[in-house]
């Protein structure tokens, strides 16, 4: 066990969390970190969290089976668990977007769009670096840089569902 590697990851997560709180404070119109929702939004988001929870549990069960069986795969174990978490996040975001409850009352979609673009850029840089240096795979397995690819998949899913929703709403208005 590499205690320094674990401590580094924990510190990284903590710093990320602090930055996220600061970004939310800047991006929200009332400069509060917490997003506010009305009663309909809370009700639908409750359902979204439920489906996200079921998705994460189902994915984690699959990962557990893979680990118990010692199935050879191309990914480090932590990537499989991270993928489970992201699968839940994708379900939560897509369900919320589709039911018009993604943006809270104090969210500024324009500011959040800028944040999305910055996050996308921050995730692309390590991927390009890893591809160029050939470190996307280490010891025959996809490692840390693949985490950025997974985040990109999540962001792409969110972008795609926003686009589909926008087209669907446009058609409904025409009708």
């Amino acid at each position, binding site marked *: 066990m590499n205690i320094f590697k674990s401590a580094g990851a924990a510190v990284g997560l903590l710093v990320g969390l602090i930055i996220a709180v600061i970004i939310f404070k800047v991006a929200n119109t009332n400069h509060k970190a917490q997003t506010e929702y009305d*009663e*309909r*939004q809370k009700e639908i988001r409750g359902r979204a969290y439920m489906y996200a929870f079921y998705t994460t549990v189902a994915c984690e069960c699959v990962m557990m089976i893979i680990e118990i069986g010692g199935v050879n795969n191309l990914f480090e174990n932590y990537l499989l668990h991270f993928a489970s978490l992201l699968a839940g996040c994708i379900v939560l975001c897509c369900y919320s977007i589709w039911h*018009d409850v993604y*943006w809270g009352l104090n969210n500024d979609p324009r500011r959040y769009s800028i944040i999305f673009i910055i996050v996308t850029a921050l995730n692309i840089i390590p991927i390009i670096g890893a591809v160029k240096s050939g470190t996307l795979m280490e010891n025959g397995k996809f490692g840390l840089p693949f985490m950025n690819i997974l985040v990109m998949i999540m962001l792409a899913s969110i972008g795609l569902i926003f686009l589909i929703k926008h087209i669907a709403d446009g058609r409904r208005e025409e009708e």
Partner: protein
Amino acid sequence: MKNLRLKSARAAKDLSQDDLAKICGVSRQTISAIEKGDYNPTIRLCIAICKALDKTLDELFWES
């Protein structure tokens, strides 16, 4: 069932869905969902809407 009385009361006050939503402290989509009959608001929100439109609960929400 669509709530046409709410829609006409809002139009009579010359308010958009967005305006009414801001007065009541909810999202525009929530007002739209109530007008379309897709969402049953709580009594608290019904009262807020009635106060914003100077109407009674009976006038806007009671189905005769």
